[in-house]
């Protein structure tokens, strides 16, 4: 709606050096209130803060503890190995897009940990809002860099804060799929991630992850139980069959290989109201195709699930 009610935009503007220019308040009297100062939303009064939780709920100190705890798992259990890290920009926002697998996916922490330790840049991981309802865990998840997957959040992180944002467009369709469908990418949502990257004016960096599928394979799931419990899926994993309830946290030591593909830049004007649906779907499909191809290639080269 092109209505002044919706967006009046900047109404009071004082033209440059002359600070005494009469304002447009209809009074003709200069008012000191009207001199706008260059303001930055993100600059907080740091002196007064007594914690390091940013506006996304992430805390670098919590994140550091998480990294320390996770590092042995990452290094000696999954033995994560990266390829093409140079494709991840050192500065500026970028949307990292990866495939998603495993009943309780091990790929998200692996990607976040890897990039944070290798590049020294924070990564914000987008996930379902389910976490926000869980006491304690939800708070820890947020402190460790988890952000609710809302287009507005993603846009702000990428556009205003110039951060790296990790997203799994397959969502729960990826993690909930059965082992027999391993490395078969699900639908990439409705291409919303492409639209956000376009709007924010940032590239999409596709990442192909091998290993998460075998770390916690789903052999069976109960849609009925899931419906009753109000969760996306209730899986039965090989881990649970072998270790019982402990299987919820006991991953198999599958070798993790992560390949970063060249960034995809969209040659479009940022901050548009809408982008062509067909273009968005097309780009999303192409990115999906590239990750799928990379996965096939990596699997062709893989000699052993455990040794890589």
């Amino acid at each position, binding site marked *: 709606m092109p209505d002044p*009610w*919706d967006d*009046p935009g900047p109404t009071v503007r004082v033209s440059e050096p002359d600070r005494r220019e009469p304002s447009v308040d209809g009074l003709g009297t200069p008012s000191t*209130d009207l001199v706008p100062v260059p303001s930055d*939303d993100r600059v907080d009064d740091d002196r*007064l803060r007594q914690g390091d939780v940013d*506006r996304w709920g992430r805390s670098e100190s919590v994140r550091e503890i998480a990294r320390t705890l996770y590092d042995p798992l990452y290094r000696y259990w999954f033995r994560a190995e990266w390829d093409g890290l140079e494709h991840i920009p050192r500065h500026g926002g970028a949307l990292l897009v990866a495939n998603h697998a495993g009943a309780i996916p091990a790929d998200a922490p692996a990607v976040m940990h890897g990039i944070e330790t290798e590049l020294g840049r924070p990564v914000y991981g987008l996930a379902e809002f389910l976490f926000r309802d869980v006491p304690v865990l939800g708070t820890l998840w947020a402190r460790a860099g988890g952000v609710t997957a809302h287009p507005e959040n993603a846009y702000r992180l990428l556009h205003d804060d110039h951060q790296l944002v990790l997203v799994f467009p397959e969502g729960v369709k990826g993690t909930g799929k059965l082992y027999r469908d391993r490395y078969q990418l699900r639908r990439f949502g409705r291409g919303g991630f492409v639209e956000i990257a376009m709007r924010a004016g940032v590239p999409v960096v596709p990442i192909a992850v091998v290993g998460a599928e075998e770390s916690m394979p789903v052999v069976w799931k109960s849609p009925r139980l899931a419906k009753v419990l109000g969760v996306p899926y209730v899986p039965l994993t090989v881990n649970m069959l072998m270790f019982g309830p402990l299987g919820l946290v006991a991953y198999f030591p599958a070798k993790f290989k992560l390949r970063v593909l060249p960034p995809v830049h969209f040659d479009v004007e940022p901050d548009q109201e809408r982008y062509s649906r067909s273009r968005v779907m097309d780009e999303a499909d192409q990115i999906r195709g590239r990750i799928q191809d990379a996965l096939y290639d990596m699997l062709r080269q893989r000699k052993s699930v455990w040794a890589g």
Partner: protein
Amino acid sequence: MRVLVTGIGTFWGSRIAQELETHDDVEVVVGLGTNEPVLPLERTEYVRSDSGYTILQRIVHATQVDTIVHTHLVVDSTQLSGRATHEINVIGTMNLLAAAGTAGSPVRRLVVKSSTLVYGSGRADPYVFREESVRTSPARTRVERSLLEVESFVSDFSEDNPHVTVTLLRFTNILGDHMQTPFAKALRLPAVPEILGFDPLLQFTHEDDACSALTYASRNEVPGVYNVAGDGTMPWSEVCKIVGKRRVPLPPVFTNVAAEPLRFLRVVDLPPEMLSLLRYGKGVDNARFKRAGFQYRFSSAGAVEDFARGLRLESTLGERQPAYRYERDVETFFRHSPAVVRDRE
């Protein structure tokens, strides 16, 4: 400039009237309210009215005010019953807009005080709301519903009356020495409630900023909807830390049921709106009002810090009684008696 301020019987209204009085270009300030002014006022004319503001049309016509500052909207559901809230918010605003919108009405500017409660607070929400953001769940509480209704009236009014500059300000969790908001009340307790396992990000506005925002909007041409909030969000645990209070957890399930005995025993009344804020938190984008030229004095952390200072002083001196009481005869004497020498240089 001739201004009418509603809700003169609240801290908001009195404070705005006080600020407007100091400006020479403000010829007349008429304060309308169900109660007497709570702060000493120099030249504001106080008119008592019922909560539905039925006499407003006559006042507007008689005083020929060009600006109306509508501060009398209830955003704290602990203050009044749902019915009274509806009466004040919805019916009051309806009458006010009717008076301002009649043919030949002198009103050219309308400033309305709303709240970021209109966005709600839920799990599917973005962390930062813009003015255009729509809420993700329907409003369930009375206050939220009434505010949404008020906002839609105001929006219609602005559409129907293009010659009137309409400004709607949405305020966020105000803290200060004088204003009794649910958050201020909670932080005054010896131990502050939280919901176990949740540590939401919250944003605060200092009461001084809140009042100057309204004054700014009534004295400048800033049409549209604006969020008003200090910069930055911070976790509730950190807020309590700055204020120097311990926290007592409420259970994460059946929180509302658990809050009931506290309500009943008058320990603290945690309205449902506040409980969802203590669970999910909420942030708003304040950039638009800054672009319109407004300058904040306090960030969120600054507002909390200043509130903590006020609390420390209060704990030393004890709770102070309001220093001012409105006396009709005295006020009338000073304003209208020929014995008083006015306009003295």
